[in-house]
């Protein structure tokens, strides 16, 4: 099976990639979620990660973000091997993730969710005024209006909840790699468009992005490269301009 390796140049091994995933395997109580997946990515690149349900996309992303630990294989970020850092430690290295289920604390208010785990303190005391101010600035940047920041996020609309989850990315240092797991799921056409614009803007700011989506339209709109997973294995990796949608779908379903 052609994996399209020839279609883009590999760097010499001495140079370091932004992210390098080597032969990563992960089992969940007997189910082989990932069986030796390898890929690498460079700065300001957008990768679209596609595959059918259960192909291992989310698992792979969660391993990169530090939420899961791989059973075997290596993950290196900026040339440094990442081992048992956990989500907080990987975030320090400049990798941030927006999870598919948004991972929000639903009865807490908006600033508490945006700054969850990254609270600003002054002499050890929470600086709520500063956090509220930054929350407003971030929501403005995301072109989202939320009437009252004090309300619990479960009272917000789906789009607003998405904005809160994505807003978390803009706290603290700018990430060098952003992982987006189905960020357009449940969003309307207009909101999806806004999100794709945001992805383009972020790439211009030299932030690399891995985007998981079931919507191939969205992937083809923003991605430079597509990686296809099936049953926990990488079955294809191509530049977007060198592949058609039909070919991607065939790779996903394994009908070639």
């Amino acid at each position: 099976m052609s994996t399209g390796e020839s279609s883009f140049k590999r760097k010499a091994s001495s140079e370091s990639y932004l992210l390098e995933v080597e032969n990563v395997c992960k089992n969940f109580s007997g189910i082989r979620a990932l069986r030796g997946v390898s890929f690498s990515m460079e700065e300001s690149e957008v990768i679209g990660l596609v595959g059918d349900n259960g192909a291992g996309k989310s698992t792979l992303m969660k391993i990169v973000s530090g939420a899961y630990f791989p059973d075997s294989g290596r993950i290196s970020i900026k040339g440094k091997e990442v081992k048992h850092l956990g989500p907080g430690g990987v975030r320090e290295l400049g990798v941030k993730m927006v999870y598919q289920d948004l991972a929000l604390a639903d009865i807490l208010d908006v600033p508490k969710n945006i700054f969850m785990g990254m609270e600003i303190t002054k002499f050890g005391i929470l600086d709520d005024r500063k956090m509220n101010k930054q929350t407003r600035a971030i929501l403005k940047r995301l072109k989202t209006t939320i009437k009252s920041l004090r309300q619990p996020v479960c009272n917000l609309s789906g789009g607003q909840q998405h904005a809160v989850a994505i807003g978390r990315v803009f706290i603290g240092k700018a990430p060098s790699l952003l992982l987006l797991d189905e960020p357009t799921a449940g969003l309307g056409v207009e909101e999806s468009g806004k999100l794709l614009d945001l992805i383009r803007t972020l790439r211009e700011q030299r932030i690399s992005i891995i985007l998981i989506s079931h919507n191939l339209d969205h992937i083809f709109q923003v991605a430079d490269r597509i990686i296809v997973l099936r049953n926990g294995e990488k079955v294809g990796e191509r530049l977007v301009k060198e592949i058609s949608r039909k070919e991607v779908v065939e790779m996903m379903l394994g009908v070639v």
Partner: protein
Amino acid sequence: MVKFYIDEVKDWSVIPGSLKTEHTHTKTEYSKLDGRARLSSPSGNKKRNTRITRLKEIIAKRNTFIILIGFLIIMQLLNPLFLQLDNLQNLLRQIAIIGIIGIGTVMVIITGNFDLSVGSMLALGGAVGSQVSITWGTGWGISAALGLGLVLGLVNGLVVAKFHIHSLIATLSTMGLIRGLALLSTSESNISGMPESYLSLGGGTLFGFIPTPFVIFIIIALISSFCLAKTRFGRHLYVVGVNMEAAYLAGIKADALIIATYMYSGMLAVLSGVCLTSYYWSASPLVGKGWELQAIAGVVIGGVSIFGGMGTIAEGLVGIAIVRSILNGLFLSNISVYYEYIVVGILLVVAVLLNILIMRWRIK
């Protein structure tokens, strides 16, 4: 067959309906829970609806402090003895001794767990504190008790956080276990003969009026309240209580936080035991039975959610003051102490029902 399927559906975005994961459903469930969303629907009598919303808001925001004051006035009207100096001192001491436990209970409940072993830890702590202070002096007695509380809390915390045993089962087990240790350590009898300095801890007063335990209680309450509301530690406790998974993904060390709250709860429970035994001048291995219920009922009445992630120490302690005032009123009216358990049981059920209703309305 498969190929045909692909050729038929050229636009991939049509397919996702079947491929998308289920998470979009949860959002619609939230809006069902949201009372305001339902009430703002055009159907029904608008005027009546706004009145119901108002009523719901009043219940949800139940200003428990006003309820407490109201209770005190009613008690005073029913029984003039209620607000007399002797009884007031007694009431403050009772509120303090169970309130110290309540502070720990609030913290544990905010993380979404329970600590049922506080009553037993109180008994064991009091017994150990008394015995050590008789032989080695008060300083050693109190230190030994507090150290013991931290160790017992650590055990509770480890069982809950590391072995993932439900906190109700875990602390129900340690509740029995620690009660047994208390009985063993005292050889099933009361201990007395503690040094003067030990006894002044529970029986003394500040300015000749405010009982010492109440002073200790207020100081601990203020410090704990500050930590819960104004530090990252406190903020993270709420996150852990609402969504453990989200807390983990946000880089919050939930296990360590849960263990810390149990250790704090254990330390406060034994401190309460020390205050109680020093006030009684004797340590009984049977004290504190059912106090975990009083503490939980109190803080939930005050507005701390049993589902975790919601409530403050002040709210919880006002709730405990309400429970103690009611029990004190019963005591003054010469009603059998056995009713205490019945009343606490009823209060707990009412509090939990209110809690569930408020969570359903989602009015804050």
